[in-house]
């Protein structure tokens, strides 16, 4: 094998891939061909130049109703209480479909583009010209478990790396003192499926999402226990290094052993960096206010959104925030009492999301950050349990904003009732291909070999949604 015919990125991906790769990279390292072979998270170049360098993904877990937020359907009022007909088979996941149910909220046109957004998102609506709205998204499953997996990993089945894993695998991270992929969950609980939602699947552990906690230390086991002072810890780390280096003397060419010694230095630095990264008390009162920090009901999500900005600012590649947790009422899963459910969740997130957009803009980060907003599916135009809406994977809304995204765009449309995507139908494969594309990654070339196959985030599917590109 001629080492010179490999790009550095390929080498590093090989390095992430296994011990054979490590040994190979080790040889090249000694030949001076490969710098920074130590960390699988070392930054890697984009496949092609693209504006977005980082992602903040806002996941409205449980499923957001499109017909109450971003996809107005006057027909629901006109035909209220009547059966939904002429749209093919009506699939109600939880059984007992009702008649058409009008939205309790009013829609208005916003921005130069005249995008219609409901009164649930008054603050986000002010940024209508920044949003690329896809009203014709579809998912493969109307059940939470598989649908969450599909939105997060591309496959409805468990076991695949999440989008954040793919992105950090493809691009590494700009800050080795912080995890490259960080996840915030809701204070009412995490999403079902648990950690596999941000799992590394079959990739090395380096690419798994690290959950950040909402209080105390952001990372579990970040800091030494009570009673152990920083001085003590440093003394301890020095002893460990000296003992490990002595051991390394017998195997000077073993890059795995030296990488492990180095990982303790990173861990030590992570203690201060991670704590500092989420210390929003360092932000001005005005900035905090922008996110709704210190007020209800925005405080919790606002803090997370502000932390996300601080993390992205520090070079973290992928931040995912889950809004809604647990089951039913605590999540967006409005099977009954839609009014209270969506009223609550929108009120919690509207101002912070708008604040995030504004803040990123004022810091010049908006163009290098991709913001995603979506649930795992949408909701039915007909009623469920009298005043709620059931799952709907056949047509729903998602939006993108920021780096490389053409604001003020509306892609596709659902039918008269908002049930089925009928115009310019899009799939999650296409959404994922587009996310990678906006980050300068070719979704067909970003592969990882597993069990004999070059796996891809979009499997054998996908196509970039050109309409949303600036």
């Amino acid at each position, binding site marked *: 094998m001629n080492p010179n015919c490999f790009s550095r990125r390929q080498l590093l991906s090989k390095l992430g891939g296994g011990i054979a790769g490590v040994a190979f990279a080790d040889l090249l390292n000694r030949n001076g061909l490969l710098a920074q072979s130590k960390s699988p998270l070392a930054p890697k170049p984009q496949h092609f130049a693209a504006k977005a360098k980082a992602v903040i993904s806002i996941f409205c877990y449980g499923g957001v109703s499109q017909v109450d937020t971003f996809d107005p359907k006057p027909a629901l009022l006109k035909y209220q209480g009547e059966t939904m007909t002429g749209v093919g088979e009506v699939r109600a996941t939880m059984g007992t479909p009702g008649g058409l149910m009008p939205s309790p909220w009013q829609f208005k046109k916003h921005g130069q583009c005249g995008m219609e957004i409901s009164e649930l998102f008054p603050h986000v609506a002010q940024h209508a010209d920044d949003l690329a709205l896809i009203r014709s998204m579809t998912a493969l499953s109307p059940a939470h478990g598989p649908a969450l997996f599909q939105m997060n990993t591309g496959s409805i089945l468990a076991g695949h790396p999440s989008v954040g894993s793919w992105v950090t695998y493809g691009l590494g991270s700009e800050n080795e003192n912080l995890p490259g992929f960080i996840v915030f969950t809701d204070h009412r609980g995490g999403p079902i*499926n648990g950690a*596999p939602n941000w799992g590394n699947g079959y990739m090395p552990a380096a690419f798994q999402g690290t959950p950040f906690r909402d209080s105390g230390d952001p990372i579990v086991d970040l800091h030494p226990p009570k009673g152990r002072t920083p001085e003590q810890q440093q003394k301890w780390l020095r*002893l460990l290094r000296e003992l490990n280096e002595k051991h390394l003397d017998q195997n000077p060419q073993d890059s*795995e052993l030296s990488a492990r010694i180095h990982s303790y230095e990173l861990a030590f630095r992570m203690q201060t960096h991670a704590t500092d990264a989420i210390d929003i008390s360092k932000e001005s009162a005005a900035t905090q206010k922008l996110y709704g920090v210190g007020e209800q009901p925005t405080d919790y999500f606002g803090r997370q959104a502000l932390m996300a900005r601080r993390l992205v600012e520090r070079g973290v590649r992928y931040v995912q925030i889950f809004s809604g947790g647990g089951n039913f009422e605590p999540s967006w899963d409005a099977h009954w009492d839609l009014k209270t459910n969506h009223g609550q969740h929108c009120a919690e997130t509207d101002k912070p999301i708008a604040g995030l957009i504004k803040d990123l803009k004022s810091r010049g980060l908006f163009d290098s950050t991709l913001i995603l907003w979506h649930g795992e599916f949408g909701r039915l135009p007909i009623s469920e349990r009298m005043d709620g809406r059931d799952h709907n994977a056949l047509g729903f809304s998602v939006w993108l904003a920021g780096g490389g995204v053409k604001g003020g765009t509306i892609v596709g449309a659902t039918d008269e009732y908002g049930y089925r995507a009928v115009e310019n139908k899009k799939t999650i494969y296409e959404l994922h291909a587009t996310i990678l594309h906006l980050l300068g990654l070719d979704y067909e070339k970003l592969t990882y070999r*597993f069990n004999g196959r070059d796996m891809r985030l979009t499997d054998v599917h996908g196509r970039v949604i050109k309409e949303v590109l600036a």
Partner: protein
Amino acid sequence: MQLRKYCKLRLGIVTLPLLAFLLFAFHTDAKWAQQPTLSQQAYKILQQNCFGCHGAAKASELDLRTAEGVLAGGENGKVIVPGDAQASRLFQFITHQEKPTMPPGKKLSDADIETLRQWIAAGALFDGFAPLAVEAAKAETAKLPERPFTDAERGFWAFQAIKRTTPPRATLASWNRNPIDAFLFAAMKAKGVKPSPKADRRTLIRRAYLDLTGLPPTPEEVAAFVNDKAPDAYEKLIDRLLASPHYGERWARHWLDLVRYADSGGFEFDVDRPEGWRYRDYVVKAFNEDMPYDQFIREQLAGDEYAPESDDAMIATGFLRLGPEGGGGGERGRQDALDDVITTTSLTFMGMTVGCARCHDHKFDPIRQSDFYRIQAVFAPTRPVNHPLVKPDVVAAHQAETRRIETQQRPLKKAKDELEAPYLKMLVEEAVSRLPEYMQIAWRTPEDKRTAGQKLNVQQIRKTLEDDTLSMKLTDKDIVARMSAEDKQKHQDLVTQIRALDRQKPKPYPTARAIGEMSAKPAPTHFLHRGSADAKGPAVQPGVLSVIGECDFPTPPANAKSSFRRRGLAEWLTNKQNPLTARVMVNRLWQHHFGEGLVRTPSNFGKMGELPTHPELLDWLALEFMNADFGVRNAESATTPHSTLRAPHSQAWSLKAMHRLMMTSQVYQMVSDDIAANVAIDPENKLLWRMPRVRLEAEIIRDAILAVAGNLDRTLGGPCVYPYIDPKLFQSSTKRTWPGKPDDDPSTWRRSLYIFSKRSIRYPLFETFDQPNLINSCERRNRSTIAPQALLLMNNNFVLFEAQKFAERLRKEAGADVAKQIERAYQLALGRAPSAFERTKTAKFIQGNPTGLAEFCQALFNLNEFVYRQ
């Protein structure tokens, strides 16, 4: 008894007319609409209302689509008593006499109920179940796409017969003692690479202990071995370790990686499998007893078809139920589940990526899409069975007692419902008055005047307010609150009586997650175009990888309830002519001893996998494995019961013999250090000129910490344990809980193998240190080095707690003298004395620091030397 006779009779009748029917299928189809028979009408009703759950999805294991399915009933027993509608549970459910009322959330029209009543009363005949026959006729006339294989494909190394090669003769006599050395040395010599020198005994014993038991040796064991003057001291050591029960624990874990074992189902509900551990214990036992590998395969794939009377063989079939479940029902869900079984089975036993051929012919290997569906036909008839681990009379008594109590409860429940009815009605009216106007109008409109939408809405109101336990719109509490004092008392009495009876219900008996089938002649499996359940192609016969050859599937015995297809597959796999099975397994053993396999893609022997580095050696080992006459078989393993499962040659397929062969080679005993000249020629060590250094697995790091701290509970087997996980990592969700015990709770001090593996809540130490994801078959663990691993060993409470325990142990065993403590600590943790440098450094660190000793102990847990096997 009478019923069973009836079923047999019916099944006999059904299959013949079905064949006859094929001929007329196309013609009769058109006539259907005009004069449907009672059976045809019944079929339509079931199809429209029931197949959604009780079709391919087999909710409660009930499949109403076929004659066999209807008669077999579901997991709770028969649903139809032919000739007696009132006694049929299906009828009780659809008439809402019994819960669960069916279909969920609605009631069939009176006309439909009457049709079904007449149909059951007339004997529940199946002559009208025509659509299936029509479908079969259409499908079977189509031709199966079969692409021809090229000579190059047929000639690919992995499909060739295993060849016996005489080991080469080395000039150095000592290299001829073990053929492994002879093969490897010849290859090294050819490339100009020098083998490394032999490691010292301290290194060897640590290596052997970690490899075979996953636990470090005690200082006493090290000393005994170092001082053993016997010429066969090393061989005795290997034999001793192979006889240790911890050997089974260590090697079971490797197997569990392959079969993606977990203790829960994953997905939304991530349902626990509280008795899943029986399969894990089965694997441990199989390794410990050196069960011949062919028997191990037979039991896992078809234990129920070989030895249904054996609990172990039934537990072993749990292999087929290890995958995630709950990812979606219906035809697609069943297809995904079967795909998962085929993928895992073929990776594990054949080293082939058959799963790639679900939607198209394999892109690289000669695996046809039709092969995928032929293999699917082997597994398609399976259904989950909870195999009782008690005698049949205990089961019968249990069922009778449960029925007795439920019969007593029935009138009480009815009385309770009647008592609640008027109050419920009142509450419903109140709730409706708070609804939007259009809903109220629907409610108030007389039934016969309601529009279609209004009917839906009224149905929804009823369901939500009266029937819905999920949203709890109207709870028992609401109802009771409105009751008069007298009714309240009555209600309370009824509830008390019902509950008292609930408490009398017998406790569940132990069961194993097992596999069974329903019939010797299962429904046909279809080729699916593009892998889609909506694009059925021709029916396929069971088969194997056609590039290797065909398989003679056995004919099931006359009284069989199973197709014996899996038994056919197991026989094909364990046939000594099969070129894959033995090669794949010896390569796995090699991989775990030597860091990498001779084929470095151990579950992919296909074209996209790597070629064997030493093909002759691989073949030689594979043949030895199947026919070996050397070895260390345990006496007790000869007493395993099922004779039909055992290979005729008692020494064949012995894993322990292979361990012994590999570990007594000179190559296995070499040092791990660099040799610059060799690195230049073979940097990846493919020639195996040194023993690779390997990072220990997550579980072994934890086990070693516990063992060194003197805290390890070495109890074998049994239900899982739950060590502490920070609740912030799983959060309070109604469906996900982790009953973690604190680190100082001795119940958690078991080996890592026994920690509950919940698919949605991973034990952080395992997840961080590359434990596989419990969802995909894992051939080889990633070994990544990342900062969170360091943080965990620096700050995690478990590590800190065990460091303290280790310190306590040192004080107890070495007294207060720091030098002695250090000496003992190194012996315990690393199996060697500290160097002068280490003595000085660590003594300086400990002295004058009140927590110095525990911190030093923790530093030992963090050493590269501690977490790597030399």
